[in-house]
Structure formats: C-alpha cells, structure tokens
C-alpha cells in the first residue's frame, strides 16, 4: 500500500470512531423524540402553549420555509450558482437554434401516444405536490422535480426539436428561473419593506402576524389553509426548480447533438 492509502484508511477509521463517540446515544432510535422535535410538532399548526405558530399542517415544509427559511434561501442560491456555473462551462459549445429533426425520428408511435396521455398527469401531480406542500408531504422542490420529468421524457421520446421550436431555449428558461427567484426574494422582504414605509414593526421572512408585528400573510383564504408565506415560496420554488432542471437537460443535450 502507498502512504496515501494508509492515511486515508486511518482517517476513515478515526473519523468514524469520533462520529460514533459523539453520537452514541442516537445509535439506536429511542422510544421518544427530542424536545426540539416536540416543539416543532406542537407549534407547526396550532399553539396550545406557545404564542407563535407556523400555520401549516406539514412540519417539514414549515421547518424548511418558515423556521429555517434563511437556510433554504441560501440553498436556493447554491442551486442557482451551480446552474450558472454549468451554463458558463457550456458557453459557446452550443447554438440555441437547432435544425429540425427529420419527421419520424424518436421512439415508436405507442410510446409517443402514451407520453402524450401521461404528460398532463405528470404536470397535475407536480403542481399538486408543490401547491399542497403545506398540507401534505411535499413542497416546492419535490413538485418541481416531479414536473421536470416531463421535459426529460419529451427529449428522450420525441427529440429536442419540439421543445426548442416551442421556445423552451436555455436563455428563455433562465429568464423564467430568474423571475421565480425574484419572486422568492420579493416575498421574503415585502412585509419588512411595507413595515418600514408604514412605520410598523415587521420582520424579514415574516409569515403570519406576530404579537409585536401585526403585518402578515393570510393564514386561511376562503376556509382553505394557506400557511402564510409557505404557499408563495412553494409556488416560486417549484417554477424555479422545473426551469433549472430543464435548462440543464436541454443544454447538455444541445452540446451533445452539435458534436
């Protein structure tokens, strides 16, 4: 063995020993959950003992966009920067106009018909996952990733031409993605700006009205639970994610078809 392999092996062993030492009480799941988890579960929809609540029935989305909203904002930023890096690496390697593929290319007529039937269903499932993210398991990212299956299916089964001919070029999708990210930014600061203008106490990333900050997004609209800020974040995040994945697929396949 070379020295580097021995060093790697020893560091793996020592690292896992450290991990198991620090986390020995969580090696086997306990009968009860931790106090922090109980706090999240108790305050996520209703507040029996606390003043503050998130107003959503799904704890994970409430944590992702409300309790730890700033964290998720930076996660979205990381995704944006990674995609920008991809497009910079691919710069100049592809042209956005693509000559039409000859008719009859793509897979057989059975596969095409099934894709045409399932396409609206995929979109419906994705939108439902995204917009019900504060009520049922799901959220903006999961819904967007589900919807992004459809462009991939169209690329594999029909070819790139239908997408490019309908205007889904990487630059236009990047504009859509930029608008969705702008929406996320605006939703997160709009209450603070209104509070500054009116002279009322308001916070960045504020979702529902608080005792010391009366501004807030609606908790319910016509009896349907909105979860305050969560619904808007899920909507914009799903648009941003579906645009991002479509850009990545189209760009790498445009490079490949040019070679």
């Amino acid at each position: 063995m070379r020295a580097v392999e021995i060093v790697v092996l020893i560091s793996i062993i020592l690292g896992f020993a450290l991990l198991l030492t620090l986390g020995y009480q969580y090696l086997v799941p306990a009968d009860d959950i931790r106090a922090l988890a109980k706090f999240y579960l108790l305050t996520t929809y209703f507040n029996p003992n606390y003043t503050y609540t998130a107003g959503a029935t799904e704890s994970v989305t409430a944590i992702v966009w409300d309790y730890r909203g700033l964290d998720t904002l930076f996660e979205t930023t990381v995704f944006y920067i990674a995609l920008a890096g991809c497009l910079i690496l691919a710069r100049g390697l592809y042209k956005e106009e693509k000559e039409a593929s000859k008719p009859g290319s793509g897979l057989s007529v059975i596969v095409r018909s099934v894709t045409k039937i399932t396409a609206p269903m995929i979109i419906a499932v994705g939108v439902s996952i995204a917009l019900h993210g504060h009520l049922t398991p799901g959220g903006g990212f999961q819904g967007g990733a589900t919807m992004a299956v459809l462009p991939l299916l169209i690329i594999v089964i029909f070819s790139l031409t239908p997408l490019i001919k309908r205007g889904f070029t990487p630059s236009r999708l990047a504009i859509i993605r930029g608008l969705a990210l702008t929406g996320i930014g605006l939703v997160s600061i709009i209450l603070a700006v209104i509070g500054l203008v009116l002279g009322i106490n308001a916070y960045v990333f504020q979702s529902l009205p608080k005792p010391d900050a009366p501004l807030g997004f609606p908790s319910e609209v016509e009896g349907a639970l909105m979860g305050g800020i969560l619904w808007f974040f899920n909507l914009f995040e799903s648009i941003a994610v579906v645009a991002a994945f479509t850009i990545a697929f189209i760009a790498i396949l445009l490079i490949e078809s040019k070679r």
Partner: protein
Amino acid sequence: MQVDISIINTYLLMVTLVAMIANFVLSLYGVFFKPHYIKKIIALSMLSDTANTITLYIGYRRWVDGVPPTIPVITNRSIEGIYDVVRRSVDPLPPALVLTAVVIGLATTLFLVYLGYILYTHYKTLDMREIKRLKG
C-alpha cells in the same frame, strides 16, 4: 411464554446502522481509488445518499403501541389530534435538513457532470490516470 422483542428490534436497527457505515466506507473507497470520473461521481452520490439515510435514521423512533411511527403531518386539526401526532410522529427536523442536502447534492452533481464533459472534450478520456499523465 413472553418473549422480549426489544433486543431483536435493537439488533435489527444496529444491523441497519452497520450496513450504512459499510456503505459509507465503500463509497469513500470509490471516490478515492476508482480511476474513472463517472465512477467517482456515482460514488460521491452514494456517499451523500448514505449520509442522508443516517440523518433520517437518527430522527427515527421506536414503534408506538405496536404500530410504526407516522410522518410529521397533522391530519386531525383538533388539540387531541396534534398531541396524538406528537406522540406518534418521527422527528421532523432531519427530513428538513435532508431536503436541503439533497438539493445541494443534486446541484453539485449537475456541475460535476458538466465539468466532466469539458474534461472529456479537452483530454478525449475520463480516466483520471490518463488525465494525470496528459497534464497541461
């Protein structure tokens, strides 16, 4: 005869943990010692998936009243319903952290795939030993 099944439960959970640690070590081996770029990316995504699974495992809990724990979603919106969810649900924080980690992992994998494409156009190979030899 009453058999205490908690030792069996603990044993099975421990088997899961040891399997995940083995998976972790295997994927680290793949990242460091597999010469091909695509295999390195596959091992890296295995590594992040294993880390995510261990995170979810930490948030798991034992069965309550002989039924598995539920997802942290409130379906009955009364106070009793909320307390019932608190009594039965798994920890909601690790899934939220894993969601963030999955998105970032996906973004970095996407970037690595594009980087691999550029590597291939430059060197006409993705074998790391060859690329080291052709340096410059």
